[in-house]
């Protein structure tokens, strides 16, 4: 499958609460420090939009953001530019970027022990042409995702497809364990 606009949204811990305004100076500082080896472009503030993208950090290849769309507070990575390799490589790259950003967020003192357990996250593909929200896409995506998840969550996991036809294709991962970002990154690197 040629789709490259993969989104990964990592859920924060259920009890987490974030003052999104605190992300603005944090994201500006990431730009100054050249964090995460991204070509950073800008910070976009959408706190005024109900159920909106929150505060975003715009990069050339993709966007990062902290938002609470659908009532779930989380960190989103949204790939926007073409990516090399096949779907397996793109999947790992998107997840890897989200995890790396998550780790940086967890280390921000101003966010007061924000925690990303790593047990709940959503993969979506923002491409209605190459990955329509249908069974064909699920058959193309799910096997590779399961292969990866087997390595990330040896304790088991569940996959749930979000089948609102109007929305982009999305699969929600609910793992039996909460390994935390660090462990997930290590497992991903080894996968």
């Amino acid at each position, binding site marked *: 499958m040629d789709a490259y606009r993969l989104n990964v949204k990592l859920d924060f811990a259920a009890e987490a609460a974030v003052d999104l305004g605190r992300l603005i100076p944090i994201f500006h500082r990431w730009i100054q420090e050249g964090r995460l080896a991204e070509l950073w472009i800008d910070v976009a503030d959408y706190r*005024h939009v109900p159920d909106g*993208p929150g505060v975003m950090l715009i990069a050339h290849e993709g966007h990062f953001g902290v938002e609470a769309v659908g009532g779930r507070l989380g960190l989103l990575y949204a790939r926007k530019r073409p990516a090399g390799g096949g779907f397996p490589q793109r999947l790992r790259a998107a997840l890897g970027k989200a995890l790396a950003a998550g780790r940086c967020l967890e280390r921000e003192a101003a966010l007061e022990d924000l925690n990303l357990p790593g047990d709940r996250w959503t993969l979506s593909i923002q491409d209605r*042409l190459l990955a329509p929200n249908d069974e064909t896409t699920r058959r193309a995506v799910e096997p590779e995702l399961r292969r990866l998840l087997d390595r990330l969550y040896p304790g088991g996991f569940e996959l749930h497809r979000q089948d609102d036809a109007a929305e982009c294709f999305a699969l929600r991962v609910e793992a039996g364990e909460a390994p935390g970002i660090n462990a997930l990154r290590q497992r991903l690197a080894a996968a």
Partner: protein
Amino acid sequence: MTEVTWKQRLEGRLPRSIAREIEIYETQMELKRQGKIDDKVFAESRLRRGVYGQRYDNGRRQDGTGTRTLEYPSGELTKGPNTLWDAPGMQRIKIPFGEVTADQLEVIAALAEEISDGIAHVTTRQDFQLHFVHVDDTPDLMRRLAAVGITTREACGNSVRNVTGCPLSGICSDEAFDVTPYAKALSAFLLGHPDAQDFGRKFKISFSGCAQHACALAHLHDLGLVARTSPPAGESSPAGDRPQRGFELYVGGGLGAVPHEAKVLDPFVPVEELLPVAQAICRIFGRLGEKRNRGRARIKFLVAKLGIDEFRRLVVEERASLPFDPRWTELLPEPAAASPAAAERVVERVAEPETALAAGPFVEAYDAWRARRDAPAREPAPLPGGDDLPADFKIWAETNVREQRQKGYFAVTVHLPLGDLTSRQARRLAALSRRWGGGVARATVEQNLMLRWISGADVAGLYRGLAASGLASPGAGTIVDITACPGTDTCKLGISSSRGLASELSRRLAARSFELDEAIKDLRIKVSGCFNSCGQHHVADIGFYGVSRKAGGHAVPHFQVVLGGQWTDNAGAYGLAMGAVPSKNIPRAVARLTDHFVAERRPGESFQSFVRRVGKAAIKARLEDLTGIPSHAEDASFYSDWGDAREYTIADLGVGECAGEVVSAVDFALAASERRVFEAQVALERGEIDAAGRQAYRAMLQAAGAVTRSEMPDLGDDPEEIVNEFRIHFHDTRRFHDPFAGAKFANFLFQAHGEIEPRFDAEAARRRIEEAQLFIEASHACVARHSAPPA
């Protein structure tokens, strides 16, 4: 899974002319990547398709500690002067008079989440905008929009921009008549019209149903049309005839740095004269408007320079000289008498060159759109009453719901904070509009969306649907509904954060909304990021535009306070700036102004009248202490702007593209002919020999037409006519002769034209392509020779 492209997927679903138009644009993109098209020509070409630049697209960004270079993968490849190819841009999507269908909303939503940042933004001219869009994504964006009847053509650049119209047209009890079909007619007529391709700046048109409300803000438009009947409503004609429909026609309005109020060109233009008079105005603007000094190129300067009487005389004269066009009346909603000038030659412009994008093909593409009529989906009913309605609903309904002229139906305004909604919200709104609103919504210049024809019985259900989607914010059209341009968020010209300020003000005012005095609840606050007035601050009760000041060696964001503006009476008066206040003190300034008004207004006195009575000097004195800037050590927050943690700077200001690039009609057409030659080469490579040869001939013909039209603007597209007139005016006069090769290149055209049904082999096609290239070069040289200033 079968891999397809959007072009394949939408095959047959786009009007052929539109599909071809997008292919032309894609070819231009490829030519630009190969460095075969001039920066300015490509920039203007993409601007005319709504593909805009954004802040930092020159590859530099102040990050608060210093200027950072943005090292894009495409390196130095540009998409315009000082605009890097890979830098994200803004896509403007024209929505004529704001009418957007559910299908269209859904496609805009899909595009927002797939290629943008998930937000669709409604502008102060009833457009949608998507930000952070890569130029490579724009052709498919155009295809997907075209498949649902939207063209981005002429959304930006030196063209007729989106035609705006009152969102209440057709349902307002104060309107003279429904202007919607006339706005549609003029939009379709001028889109791609040859007489609207050679402007020095943009041209904005609006349609109002009445004179007394804000309506469509006729006074601040290049061409403002206010519906009238003759005799006026309530009077009867001596002969008892049906009132004639027409427009009070204003011309020469505009905001920008120095606003001009439009002048009355004609107190009554009958509807059947609407299109030809507009065309005549376009021709005069194209011919006489300033093109070198971009800062004085809007039509308002031309009208001011000539005076309205002389301008009027020129319009009348031009109108009389226009070749007859049956579309003047065919596009109107009612049968109109045929023009008495039927003996005149009908203009047939059916080619597809860059400059003369014939209105014909575009008009046909939008026939279904023009025929669509807004209509209720359900039976009328009164609004529900009673104490069992939720308090939230009542608060919302008080500001966001108004009864239409048609009893039992209501217009519901969806208040969008800063004009933004998410993709998911847009889809849900589309579903709600289908269920209750006939599947249509209207964008407003206050950056909201309006659903009309909602039965009173359905308003509560609609409210619940909106509330579930985060779209039920009350306060539409009130003091909490603050208009702001994109400002420093994304605009290269932004000086201060208009959106940051608007968001902060709205939040504070909304928190106090229960205690706000009635006198101030309906005040209009509008914020522009700079003096160019995209936030329409001049016509606000309280307006602001971004400026910068220095303190202790630091730059400090400020806003000029603008008072005295009038929103009603179709933007009846412009405010004046009365002093700059640090951005972080603006909320206190607003509180002080409104408190002053509440405390000292006379019964029934408007804010504008209050300002006039009290005097700006007195008001300025009341704000004086707020103009001071604390030292950086005392309060560093003053040295960064709302919603931005960086130390404030104006180093990121760039060259705006709002002014477009001045590319003459001739230059555009010659660029198009070069594109044809390129296509001929591609055809030759694919082995399509005959097609290659014929395309090369058409390229020469196009170039010859471009050169000849520089003197004969009404030249048609008939090849025989083009070649004949070219021969007379440029060959026989030796003006096209090359100083060394003489008539050689002109003869290429004559020879190719003289061949009847030519057959090509590869060698002949290749030769024809080379001849075409040489002919085009000669055309450039001819144009350059004849436009050079005298030695």
